């Protein structure tokens, strides 16, 4: 186990950021920390790096308790969102900084820096002024600088945050390949779901002062435990609801858009006061209102079409809110037009209830 965080608690004057947070990372694993802005993703990295001190709990790196060890002796690498390259040094000196503080020999430093430059496709950049580099080049220099002293764990704080989309896509692939090849243990912060899917071995979701769910991309995507996880994964159609009755195998939830029927699975623990429901857009059917007399359908107005590549997403305005459905690209139904009023049918099999605390 490279990183073990047990019962971490951290408060500032006015608020508690973490309460009893646990996180374990195996050697060579890439864990992505996904959370809404302001939940303390960056703070967690700073606590691990020793830039701030924790109130309670333990942080162990390679089995060693580091709570009171200063950041300069923890042996972690960190790459900041804004890179923080040393503006008064050239590329070589930036990368060599951590080696020089270790008092490595000149030859070792030279070799190691050259190795990193070629690894990151920066051959011949050693003498360049860091201010003259492009965004992507700066990113790679910052990564090289963090990797140079061979840290036990690499902490990356939104490393691609300031780049445009195409460059991000290329670099996140490259970073993943490189770090996997080097078998580096990584904790990677982002708020971008797609980036997390590309980079992560496991994704850790942070909310409500702790890690609420951790697992591989597929695991968490197929089975988000909490509504906040679902939201971070980009799921739409999340509604608050309370149980108001039962009909055969179904529980009836009263929500802002109307009553939703949920097939009652045995293992589901239902909060009697309020739950959150998620309706998968695949389970939403749009029907022609004229040919239907079904009492359980919702009436909605088609507000917008959004091209999503494989399918079209339809935004529907229903009384009390908005709901999103998906239809095939080449859907021919004539009543599906912007402004039309249609029927919306929800398949109970596609509704899940979150056990939020």
């Amino acid at each position, binding site marked *: 186990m490279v990183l073990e965080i047990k019962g971490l608690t951290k408060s500032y004057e006015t608020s508690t950021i973490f309460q009893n947070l646990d996180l374990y990372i195996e050697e060579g694993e890439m864990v992505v920390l996904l959370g809404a802005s302001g939940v303390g993703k960056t703070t967690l990295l700073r606590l691990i790096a020793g830039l701030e001190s924790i109130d309670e709990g333990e942080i162990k790196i390679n089995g060693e308790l580091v709570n009171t060890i200063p950041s*300069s002796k923890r042996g972690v690498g960190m790459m900041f969102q804004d890179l*923080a390259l*040393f503006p008064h040094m050239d590329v070589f000196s930036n990368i060599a*900084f951590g080696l020089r503080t270790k008092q490595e020999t000149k030859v070792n430093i030279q070799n190691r820096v050259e190795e990193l430059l070629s690894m990151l496709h920066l051959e011949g950049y050693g003498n360049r002024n*860091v201010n003259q580099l492009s965004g992507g080049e700066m990113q790679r220099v910052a990564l090289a600088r963090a990797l140079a002293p061979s840290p036990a764990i690499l902490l990356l704080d939104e490393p691609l945050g300031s780049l445009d989309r195409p460059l991000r896509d290329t670099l996140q692939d490259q970073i993943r390949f490189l770090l996997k090849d080097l078998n580096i243990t990584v904790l990677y912060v982002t708020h971008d779901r797609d980036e997390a899917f590309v980079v992560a071995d496991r994704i850790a979701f942070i909310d409500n002062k702790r890690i609420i769910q951790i697992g591989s991309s597929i695991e968490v995507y197929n089975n988000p435990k909490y509504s906040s996880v679902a939201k971070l994964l980009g799921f739409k159609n999340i509604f608050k609801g309370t149980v108001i009755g039962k009909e055969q195998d179904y529980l009836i939830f009263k929500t802002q858009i109307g009553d939703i029927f949920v097939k009652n699975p045995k293992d589901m623990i239902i909060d009697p006061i309020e739950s959150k429901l998620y309706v998968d857009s695949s389970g939403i059917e749009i029907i022609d209102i004229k040919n239907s007399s079904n009492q359980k359908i919702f009436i909605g107005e088609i507000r917008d079409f959004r091209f999503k590549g494989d399918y079209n997403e339809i935004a529907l305005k229903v009384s009390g809110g908005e709901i999103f459905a998906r239809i095939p690209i080449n859907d021919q139904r004539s009543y599906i037009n912007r402004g039309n009023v249609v029927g919306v049918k929800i398949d109970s099999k596609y509704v899940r209830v979150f056990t939020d605390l």
Partner: protein
Amino acid sequence: MSRRAAVNFFVFIPVAIFIGAFVVYPVFMLFFRSFSGEFGTSSNAIDLLRDNNYIWSIAWFTFWQALLSTVLTLIIGIPGAYLFAKYNFWGKSIFRSLVSLPFVMPTVVIAIGFISLFSANGILDRVFSIIGLDGFRVNGVNGLVFILLAHIMFNYSIVIRIVSVVWENIDERLLEVASILGSNWVDTLFRIILPILYPAILSSAILVFMFSFTSFGVVLMLGGYEYSTLEVLIYQLTTKMFRLETAAVIAIVQIVFVYIFLYINSVVQQKFTRDYGLSYRRIVKKENLLNLKSVIIFFSIIILVFVMLLPLVALVDRIISISGTYTEPFINLFKFRDHSYFFVSPWQAIFNSLKFALIASFISVLVGGLASYYLSSKRNQNRMNLIDAFLMLPLGIPAVVLGLGFLVAFSYDPIDLRGSWIVIVLAHSIIGYPFVIRSILPIINNIPSNLYDSANVLGGSTMYIFITITIPLIWRGVLVGTIFAFAVSIGEFGSSLILYRKDLVTIPVAIYRYLGQPGDANLSAGLAMSLILATVVFMSFILIERIRFRGVGSYY
């Protein structure tokens, strides 16, 4: 020619004529006459300097005292810059203003403050006797100590302002990265902080060196017979020995030196802006006054500021201790009657100073305002930078040299202004207008150009836009520039001392004259005058600090 280009052309003509006639021409005449042998000596400039051990020894002193002043100011100033950059404490902005106060104070006031501070029965003398050090004769202090202390006091704020701004803006994350990469605080100081501060430290060092190198009033009044700078030598050669040709040659050397410094400074500044090209958001951490360390720091700042201002306090103290009351010296000052040849009328001096300062600040604002308007044109930035640098030239001409230049240029046909108040006023406006430009131009340049664009699109005429947009936005800058020019003129010493005649005495010249004559009455008059002058400048300073936009425009 577009409308703006036409306006620019007509704006520039008066500025060009003014600068040509009163900056370029005097400096040219200084060159011309010192090499032409027109002063009645057959020797040429080079011969004059060679084999003149006296001049060389003064040049050597000028150099090393400036170097020593610079080193001492940096030693005291850099920790001060750190305190101002990294700590928040109550009254910080007031303290920051207060350390700048000596910089704007007239040199005669600072000099007389030091004389008061170290005089027999002055503040220090009394403190020493209270703590039982009667034998320690503070009034026997060497003139060099005076000079160095005064230079530190004057220039301290330069180091504070220039270095603390950069220090404040060092991104906290650079230090964090360094720490994560295994660097301890000594490493971080020498490998990150000092290298980043280096251009700022160098830049402030150059300015401190330049001001100390061309120091005049302080050295003249505190240096005694023993110590003299080239600037003082120029004054003495001009007014006491009537060796204009030698004075002119030294003045030329002086100007050349100053421009070398200014050039080095601009090179450093350019390197400096290049190094900070990284455009990321900076995170700056400041510590609050919560722990013991901060409290110690807070008190050290208070003590520091108090020590910096001690000479000014001593000035007030001396007035009371010499006569027992505040009022008596002032009453005496205006009853002062003497009919000796050396008599200086206090009323006359005050009247002259006010008159000169009013007219000079008016001219400065006119020239500086027009120049700022011209320089704010967005066209051809390179040419504008060049003209800007050219217009700043008077900042680099030492006051005594400027006075000498005026003396050389305007004492002969075609322009013979000998003994006229006009030369003094012109000299003051030359010294003052760069401050006006530095007060107005940054504000004009900060006005977003889309403001003009939208006004244009909305159909405003050039004049309408100027009145409704430009003026409301820049009036503060104009006011600050005016007060600045006024304060500079009223405290101006070097050129006034060279150019004045008996009935053109200004307050600083009068103070110098009083101190040069024996007797308690003269001393008391000098002190009273100094206090009046200090008060006027202090009020101007407070006004400037209140009116100016924070962060826009500076003194240097």
